[in-house]
């Protein structure tokens, strides 16, 4: 569906060049859920913004290509990009409360979005919006469509955002931490709803999150990001069964598990580096428990120690492992 090749997004700041996204490549296939996983500052959100054409360049320095339907999106004009957003790429944001305009009813906002992209009458758009709201489980959709965002709870509003995004029938759905601001019971509802709707419509989803528990529930494939790099690519089953990169291993171990009660929790030492002071060589080496001589000097390329796996770590230089 979408192919990203050697994408770089750099920002010039007073502290130096911020290499927020530094040479990443990935492919999002038809009807799959691809998860970009990483902690704050790893570049996952900047990747999405670049994909959506929302990073202004200049001042930002963007390199590489984003191929969609045989075209490089980086060559699109502003106007063309605007037509892509919404209709081709739907987006669900983290904070439903701040993503809606507080001065318009949710109905106004849903109808507007529909009519920008499709030649439908207002009453037709309203009818479609109500149907969509019912589909995402908003009770009394007819009445609630006249409400303002502040009259709804966070979980409810996130459903409305999903309804709005999906009513435009996008080919690709980009979900940036869609359940992070929600409570666990509401998160469970929203995630199972997204999964259900994806099955029905066959949309591809690019799922951005820091929560590996959520990833295990919804994703087909996972790309783990750290400090602007994709450090590991794998299917969800492979990754949880056998994480290869020491960072992924650390992340998986840092879950607070029942068996640890009364014991010290395993942890990754140190802190996530700031974007303008990424270390030389492998960017994970100051925190890596398996650091070798080469790591601080040269950045590792992506190795393929197992078929279908890709990992950016010198440990796998020797090639295949059993």
């Amino acid at each position, binding site marked *: 569906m979408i192919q990203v090749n050697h994408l770089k997004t750099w920002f010039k700041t007073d502290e130096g060049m911020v290499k927020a996204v530094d040479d990443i490549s990935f492919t999002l296939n038809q009807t799959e859920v691809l998860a970009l996983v990483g902690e704050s500052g790893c570049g996952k959100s900047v990747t999405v913004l670049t994909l959506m054409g929302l990073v202004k360049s200049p001042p930002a320095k963007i390199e590489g290509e984003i191929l969609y339907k045989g075209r490089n999106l980086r060559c699109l004009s502003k106007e063309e990009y605007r037509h892509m957003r919404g209709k081709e790429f739907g987006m669900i944001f983290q904070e439903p409360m701040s993503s809606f305009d507080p001065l318009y009813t949710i109905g106004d906002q849903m109808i507007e979005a529909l009519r920008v992209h499709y030649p439908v009458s207002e009453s037709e758009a309203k009818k479609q919006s109500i149907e969509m709201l019912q589909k995402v489980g908003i009770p009394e959709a007819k009445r609630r469509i006249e409400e303002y965002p502040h009259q709804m709870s966070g979980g409810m509003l996130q459903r409305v955002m999903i309804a709005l995004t999906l009513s435009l029938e996008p080919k690709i759905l980009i979900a940036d931490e869609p359940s992070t601001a929600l409570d666990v019971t509401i998160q469970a509802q929203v995630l199972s709803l997204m999964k259900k709707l994806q099955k029905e419509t066959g949309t591809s989803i690019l799922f951005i999150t820091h929560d590996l528990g959520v990833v295990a*529930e919804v994703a087909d494939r996972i790309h783990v990001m750290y400090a602007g790099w994709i450090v590991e690519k794998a299917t969800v089953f492979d990754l949880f069964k056998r994480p290869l990169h020491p960072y992924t291993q650390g992340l998986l171990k840092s879950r607070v598990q029942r068996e640890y009660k009364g014991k010290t929790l395993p942890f990754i030492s140190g802190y996530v580096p700031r974007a303008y002071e990424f270390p030389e060589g492998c960017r994970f080496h100051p925190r890596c428990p398996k650091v070798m001589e080469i790591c601080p000097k040269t950045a590792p390329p992506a190795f393929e120690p197992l078929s279908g796996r890709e990992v950016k770590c010198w440990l796998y230089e020797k090639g295949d492992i059993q």
Partner: protein
Amino acid sequence: MILKVEHARKYFPIRKGVFLQVAGYVKALEEASFEITEGETVGIVGESGCGKTTLGRVIVRIYEPTSGQIQYTDRNGSVHTIDKRTPRPIMKHFRRDVQMVFQDPYNSLDPRMTIGDILKEPLDVHFPKMSEKGKNQKVGDLLLRVGLYPEYMNRYPHEFSGGQRQRISIARSIASEPRLVICDEPTSALDVSVQSQIVNLLKDIQQQQRNAFLFISHNLDLIHHLSDRILVMYLGNVVEEGNATRVFDHPRHPYTQMLMGAIPDWDPENRKLREFKLQGEPPSPINPPKGCPFHTRCPEVMEICSQEKPSMIGCGDQHQTACHLLSNKP
């Protein structure tokens, strides 16, 4: 015993109109009673809006409770009621003994104070006789204790990452050598890889200082790991209370069961959210439902639930639940 909370309740008035007349109440905390003894860790868990933060703030008296009582036992063993009329010297002991770590390490440290000043403030208040040199020495010790360097004393909060700031917050909270530290979501603003570091640090500190902890969190795994005893809250009420392992292994309240079912398992081969049954959202605390607060979402709701509010009933060793399902069984 350090602290005993009896029927704590907190209503926030909603004011409307030109004369700001009270138009109703947000019933943030309806009913909570429990004790914390020396060296014990109590966890409070629940979703947003369940009143857990309000309860923490009522205990440290950031909020004045609408009704209910807090009893505090000082270091000599005498019991005092903490309210508006509590004499200042006793209040000062209370403040020294009960400290707090806040959720957001970015807003809870004064950006214009150096780390040294931040850590010295509690020392100035609670150990006025300590010499300047002694205080500096103590600040250095505190920084080392939380895994930072004494050289950081002259730096400002903005120079530190979220995890480091939370360490500074923790150092500040233990500076007065409190007997109880209340932690309101101490790790939820941090990255996953840093969370465990802070959790380990809190455990270490407890082993050295032998202080009690009150943990407030929505993260069930974390609460289980840290707590001896837990309280599950829903819509301002404590609905289940008991030994942490017991409540986790045998949750009795339907809400607790649902809450535990909603945590993803980190196992792609055993996806469970598809069967997730709990629908709807918690009702508004302005108009809480009559009877059991959970009855509007409960899968096992009965006729009595909408009429009568269940009280806490024992269901095994150190385990209590407020649910009509249990009261009907022999």
